């Protein structure tokens, strides 16, 4: 892997991705190893890797507009800190990043002009990447760039985009700003933009290799990758963290961490009882891991918080197996509510047998259809009859 990358060549729009890489000092060997590695990440068979090599050799760089709305830029951070130099490179250079607030050199009116130019020049060709959610409250004033609201920018830019990639939980499901009570009425991108293919690359942030994998897939096949029912690429989001977790055998064996400072935590047992969301979270953390495969939260001893799932902030507390019951007081768990209800049923019912004997003393054991008076009369008759008999 090249440790130092040659300085940026002057922009030559017509060069292919491979040519661009060569110009940057990447050898063919490195290029091929990158393709094989990326192919493995997105789950291609070996013939698919050849297809990828060919695509990157022959295709021109695709123009990209990368917008930032309500977000913390951790998606960009994740991407540029990818372990493989070509991964960061692919975003920053290979695709031609024509507009992105946080990284472009231009600013002010120049930046806005660059945005308009790109839209005009590459109508229907450019890829729109969005980080962050879009606030709708108060006509969207909670997020304005260059005097325009996030909503109007998103709609304007998306209108001529080839496809839209929603980076991270903010863009996919609103993340923390859409958590209750959602004061700015933050909405994910798929609620704002209609009529364009949208790829939800979930996570807070998404794994860098996953982001790169989605881009490479688009470059190679010119097609939207297979998506799950939440719009996430299946190649990365079809398995639960729980099913790919190296601690899984502890779960099946019933070996659980009871608290973060116990012996079991030291032994690396399963974090299920301290709130790990692995069993309901779909992501590649267990396989691709983070920071070049060094580790992931569970490996570091902390449960998964489910950051690639919708509303994960509202499914808290993070250190509790089941979320609190909506509509009940804070810290009202299903168990507390259930116990109170069961106790009420038992407690309320306790006097019932006694009451039954008292209130229904005439009805019990008597013939149906008789009323109380009759029953009493019968009773008296019976009594008299028997005394007669005795005498």
């Amino acid at each position, binding site marked *: 892997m090249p440790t130092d990358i040659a300085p940026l060549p002057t922009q030559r729009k017509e060069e292919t991705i491979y040519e661009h890489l060569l110009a940057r000092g990447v050898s063919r060997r490195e290029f091929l190893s990158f393709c094989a590695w990326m192919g493995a990440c997105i789950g291609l068979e070996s013939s698919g890797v050849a297809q990828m090599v060919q695509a990157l050799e022959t295709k021109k760089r695709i123009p990209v507009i990368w917008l930032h709305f309500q977000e913390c830029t951790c998606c960009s951070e994740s991407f540029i800190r990818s372990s493989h130099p070509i991964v960061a490179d692919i975003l920053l250079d290979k695709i031609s990043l024509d507009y992105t607030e946080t990284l472009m050199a231009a600013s002010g009116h120049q930046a806005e002009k660059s945005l308009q130019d790109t839209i005009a020049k590459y109508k229907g060709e450019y890829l729109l990447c969005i980080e962050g959610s879009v606030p709708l409250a108060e006509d969207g004033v909670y997020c304005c760039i260059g005097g325009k609201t996030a909503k109007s920018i998103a709609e304007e830019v998306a209108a001529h985009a080839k496809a839209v990639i929603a980076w991270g939980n903010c863009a996919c499901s609103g993340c923390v700003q859409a958590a209750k009570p959602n004061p700015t009425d933050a909405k994910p991108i798929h609620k704002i933009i209609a009529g364009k293919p949208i790829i939800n690359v979930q996570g807070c942030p998404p794994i860098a290799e996953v982001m790169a994998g989605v881009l490479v897939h688009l470059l190679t096949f010119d097609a939207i990758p297979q998506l799950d029912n939440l719009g996430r690429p299946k190649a990365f989001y079809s398995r639960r963290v729980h099913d790919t977790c190296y601690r899984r055998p502890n779960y099946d064996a019933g070996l659980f961490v009871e608290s973060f400072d116990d012996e079991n935590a030291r032994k690396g047992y399963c974090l299920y009882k301290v709130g790990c969301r692995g069993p309901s979270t779909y992501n590649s953390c267990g396989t691709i891991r983070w920071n070049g495969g060094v580790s992931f939260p569970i490996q570091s001893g902390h449960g998964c918080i489910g950051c690639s799932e919708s509303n994960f902030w509202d499914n808290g507390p993070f250190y509790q197996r*089941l979320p609190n019951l909506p509509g009940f007081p804070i810290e009202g768990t299903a168990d507390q509510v259930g116990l109170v209800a069961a106790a009420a049923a038992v407690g309320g019912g306790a006097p019932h047998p006694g009451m039954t004997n008292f209130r229904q003393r005439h009805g019990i054991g008597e013939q*149906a*259809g008789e009323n109380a008076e009759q029953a009493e009369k019968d009773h008296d008759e019976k009594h008299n009859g028997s005394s007669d008999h005795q005498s």
Partner: protein
Amino acid sequence: MNASHDYQRVYVWEQPVRWFHWINAVCVIALGATGYLIAHPPGLLNGGEAGDSYWFGTIRFVHFATAYVFMFNFLFRLYWASVGNKYTHWRNFFPISKPQLRQVAAVLKVDILQSSDKAVHTLGHNSVAYFTYMGTGLLTVFMVLSGFALYAPMSDSWFPQLFTWMVPLFGSEQNLRLFHYGALWLFIIFTLIHIYLVFYHDYVEGHGVLSSMVGGWKFMEKDAIKAEEASGISGFPRRKRRPAPAAAPGAKPDPVP
């Protein structure tokens, strides 16, 4: 003199219904117990290697396997609700007639408010019970739908995949899991009340309701049987035979022929 208790023996619960009841009972207990353990696994083992044990996996297996039995048993009961005798018929479970609602009021007066001691005599369930079982039926449907939806990601089989649409309906798997688990408490509360009331009715009414779920037979005074048939409740499949002039369901005592 003492009024004669002229009892008649009536075959109320057919064998398939009794099988359903007990299989269902075993399933609910097994699912409830394993489900609770899955939500709150006890720290049975606090040492050793993962490879030495599989108890939690076994608990989960029992839960999933029982779920299939639970579901098919319930489906069978749905089928039987259209071919079984009149006491098991599906129409009993829907509040579609005034006599049913009147009976609900009467039963509540006797059983809950205890302001009346004129027990409501029915051969099948009384209407309160039928509607309650409608509720447990819906609860069963919810448990099956949500359970298989939660099970789908762990299974390669096509069947559980049919239920994945439940997840977006509840926002997230985590939320669905909460409701799936919360419903366990409804089963617990139902079971408590159900068992109590069976003993209560057996004692108060003396129709042998407790043993009827084993042998199928109930015992009721002939007058009461006549009155019940006149009321039309749990007699729906035999509509044709209902007397046309239909003595208003106030159930006047029949004039002696």
